[in-house]
């Protein structure tokens, strides 16, 4: 360590060209954090993930279509391939949503957890940054790229596969609604994973609970089939999306509105918990 302290003094003088960031209350530090979190995605990572999920989800659809075609050629629905695609798509949705949920949880499980476990958080929190700003920055910076690589890019491929398999452009409006419903559910999953990342340091719980919650809900859902697509829970969106994919339209907007509310509530709960985080 050799340099003169006078240089450092001069470096802080009014003429040194340093422009101080203003205090923004609970938003203080948001810009810096969101920029940092974002850079974790916008290198090669998003491209690799987008290719991976496109291969996985589009490959799954192609595989299901191939199986349906094989079944048809063995005497079941040979002369009506378009009808076959329309039947395969709703069935594909359930598996695709489950796979995507697992992917989203895996991609977002470390967002809160790693810094709490490895000690980086102590350093970050010693800076003028609001804890609420950290939570909002992490949610914002991760939910958008995650939805891009797990939903937008792969499902653009899904649209292409559906159109190709059916021999005509797949109904775009209906498809867009399905994608939006899936995206909303996965957005909630990101929020839930972040919340768990502030409550526990167990990686198993952070990964397991969001995946298990969806499975348990699906199991319990069988008990109230009459209310399918109408219950105010995020996992109901799978039922809603399946109905839309099957051409039955959106049964109810209740799950959609409720999920938006759940996302807001879960992010708020994450911020509330994180404000009470004790480092040490």
């Amino acid at each position, binding site marked *: *360590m*050799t*340099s003169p*302290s006078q*240089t*450092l*003094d001069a*470096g*802080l003088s009014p003429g*040194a*060209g*340093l*422009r*101080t*960031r203003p*205090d923004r*209350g609970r938003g*203080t*530090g948001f*810009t*810096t954090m969101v*920029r*940092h979190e974002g850079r974790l995605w916008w290198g090669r990572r998003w491209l690799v993930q987008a290719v991976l999920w496109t291969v996985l989800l589009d490959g799954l659809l192609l595989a299901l279509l191939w199986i349906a075609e094989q079944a048809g050629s063995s005497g079941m629905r040979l002369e009506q391939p378009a009808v076959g695609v329309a039947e395969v798509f709703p069935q594909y949705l359930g598996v695709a949503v489950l796979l995507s949920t697992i992917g989203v949880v895996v991609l977002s499980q470390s967002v809160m957890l790693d810094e709490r476990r*490895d*000690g*980086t958080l*102590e*350093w970050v*929190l*010693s*800076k*003028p*940054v*609001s804890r609420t700003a950290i939570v909002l920055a992490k949610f914002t910076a991760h939910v958008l790229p995650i939805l891009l690589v797990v939903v937008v890019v792969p499902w653009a491929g899904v649209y292409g596969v559906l159109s190709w398999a059916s021999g005509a452009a797949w109904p775009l409006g209906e498809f867009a609604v399905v994608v939006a419903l899936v995206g909303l559910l996965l957005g909630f999953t990101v929020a839930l994973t972040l919340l768990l990342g502030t409550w526990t340091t167990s990686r198993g719980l952070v990964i397991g609970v969001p995946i298990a919650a969806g499975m348990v809900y699906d199991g319990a859902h069988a008990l109230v089939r009459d209310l399918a697509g109408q219950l105010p829970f995020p996992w109901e969106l799978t039922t809603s999306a399946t109905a839309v994919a099957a051409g039955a339209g959106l049964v109810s907007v209740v799950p959609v509105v409720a999920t938006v509310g759940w996302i807001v509530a879960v992010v708020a709960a994450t911020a509330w918990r994180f404000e009470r985080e*004790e*480092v*040490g």
Partner: protein
Amino acid sequence: MDTVTVADERTESVGDRALVVETRGLAKRFGDVEAVRSVDLAVPAHSIFGFLGPNGAGKTTTLRMLVGLLTPSAGTGRVLGADLAGDGLALRRRIGYLPQQPRFYPDLTARETLQFTAGFFFRPGPGVDRRIDDLVELVGLQDRAERPVGAFSGGERQRLGLAQAQLHGPELLILDEPAAGLDPLGRRDVLDLMERLRDRTTVLYSTHILDDVQRVSDTVAIVSHGTMVAQAPIDQLLAGTEGAVYRLSTRGPTAAIRDRLARLSWVRDVQVHGDPHAADWAVAVDDETAADHHLLRIVLEDPALSVTDFGRRTFELEDVFLRIVEEATS
């Protein structure tokens, strides 16, 4: 030794110097564990304040409370005039903090780490870049600035930690074991840096390395089992509290002079160990001025006695530290 300074006396001991950190009965409990029981700190402005204690004494927990990373279970405190229970954001703009064993984002380079840190204080610009260049040079990381922090050694992380802590020119630097993990040269550099910073900031640091404290600190606090057991300017601490004691080493008969000294009104006690060929004296006095003027002269008046060493007894910080901690423990 009775070097414990209670809060009221302590406030007097810092005289007119403004207090940058002041706590009363600061405590922290984790479940059933009392990590900090009662800490009364008074850190004067522009001091290099050493915060000492055995492992698990509560040093790191106390520092974390001062930074706002932990909420005190009891007690009050003010840092740079701001209440610990108040706006932590505003306070953290004015302090720099080096955690014990600092951890940074491993994929960022040292320069990117400093840019990230600067983002909390300043808008990007050439002034920030210059500032970062200066800091990288100051902590001797020029050759490592573009390498990922994940590949840094403990000492390099410590240097980076020191750089990020002072990036915004804080009024108070809180350093948790700043010399830990550094080789002797690195330790020397850190101490030099702390001394250079004294003019423009206050340094509150914890450490186990007592030699370092004795070298650079002007005030010291000792904490044991979560309770502060001593706080004083280091000169006062090293002088002891049993009054001034002068030490002599002599050759020749000691009885006559010993009796003469014992009769003096300003001499409290005379202890002589050894034999006529080589005796060691400990003369405790109540009047230091009288002792400074007369003690050596009186001893030299005896032509049969020669003095080979004379001076006022001081203690090594290690002696003081061990004594205080052992007394507190017992």
